[in-house]
């Protein structure tokens, strides 16, 4: 898939006809973006393995892997202590 470097991921997906971005945690309802400015948490996707990324503000980079998030996502804590 192609987009413009630096545009929000959600805009590139939208231009490619993809509007369903994730599934809601309890009922699995399809969700897309709503506010487009990073306020509402509707557009959360898994980007390069990191969940809960607000794709309406996150900028697109070449080689990114973007996946629909099912539910609340899985946080992987770093191995080394803080």
């Amino acid at each position, binding site marked *: 898939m192609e987009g413009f470097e630096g*545009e*929000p991921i959600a*805009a590139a997906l*939208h*231009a490619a006809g993809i*509007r*369903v*971005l994730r599934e*809601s945690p309890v009922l699995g*309802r*399809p*969700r*897309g*973006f*709503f*506010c*487009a*400015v*990073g*306020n*509402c948490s*509707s557009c959360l996707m898994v980007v390069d393995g990191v969940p809960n990324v607000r794709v*309406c503000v996150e900028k697109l980079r070449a080689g990114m892997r973007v996946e629909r998030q099912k539910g609340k996502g899985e946080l992987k804590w770093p191995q080394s202590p803080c």
Partner: protein
Amino acid sequence: MAPKSLLTPPVMVIGAGPAGMSAALAAADCGAEVLLCDSFSEPGGQLVKQTHKFFGSRQQFAGVRGIEIARLLGDKVASHPRIHLLLDTHVLGYYPDGMVTMESAADGVARYLKARPRRLVVCSGAAEKPLAFPGNDLPGVYGAGAVQTLMNLHGVKPGRRALMVGAGNIGLIISYQLRQAKVEVAAVVEAASAIGGYAVHASKIRRLGIPIHTSHTVKRAHGTRELEGVTVWRLDGQGRGIPGTEMRFEVDVLCLAVGLSPAAELLWLAGCRMLYVPELGGHVPWHDEVQQTSVPGIFVAGDAAGVEEASSAMVTGRMAGLAAAASLDLGADFRVKLEEARLELASLRAGPAGEKIRRGLERLNLGVPASGARGPVSSTRAQASGGGS
């Protein structure tokens, strides 16, 4: 230039929209050093997607498109020697000891910054209100501002055919912009019995053949995975839907332009006295005539102080910036500039279009004259070159 991790600016302005930029410029022009930050990667706030021409008077860039105003003010703040502009910087919180914390990605690397400003001007704007109806979470149901961002900022068509909810200025203007982007607009529905936005905006979209249905609202949004259609119905005198009056529109975009709420979270955190004022959009911090909140040294301007217009945001921002700088004993005489701003604001709010704002401000005990206040902005040609900063 990598910012230090603890910043101590004399004046800090949060939000670089029309209010924040005006506040920063006003304070910096008076000699104050200003830290101006914004979470987005360019200054301008909502202006960056507003392709329509502004109203007001010359001082508020009447006749100039929002995107141009964003460029004009953005260039000024970026080049001002006393304004330190931090973009891609999200304010996280305000602490009782006066510390403001931020996450800044200004150099492409995420950094945690702290600032303890002497004066703080909060210009965090407003957020779109949602609307509750079955199907309101379907992809394709968007805030009207989101549709505007997608079209005007990112150049992406939101869909093929849209229904607009809300006939305030935002709903009317964005309906027009949808048509400019060659997206069909099936109709505008408005729950109230009259059109809330300017008549000229309504007339403009009626001339495009877009119907406006007052006393109507959304009954439900339909679709399996995405929006496919919307059913609206008429409301009775008590605001209840009337069975039998349903109309269905086949649309793939439903825009909700049902109002804005001040994004006043930082003011809550700062312990400002907050009031619920429906005319101003919701919870707002109490503020005095020069935009100072109940916490000395903390000012508020723009939509965060009460949802109004960009033209008013520029003036309340200027007022707050002047007042913040004035309280720093920089030696400049602020009285004339503050009075100019006050008169300009009164003039903008004096007509029938300002009635709601005036009522809202009365609840903050800020009386504004209802009859036309003569201000420098409506002067004859001879005085046209003076005034304003």
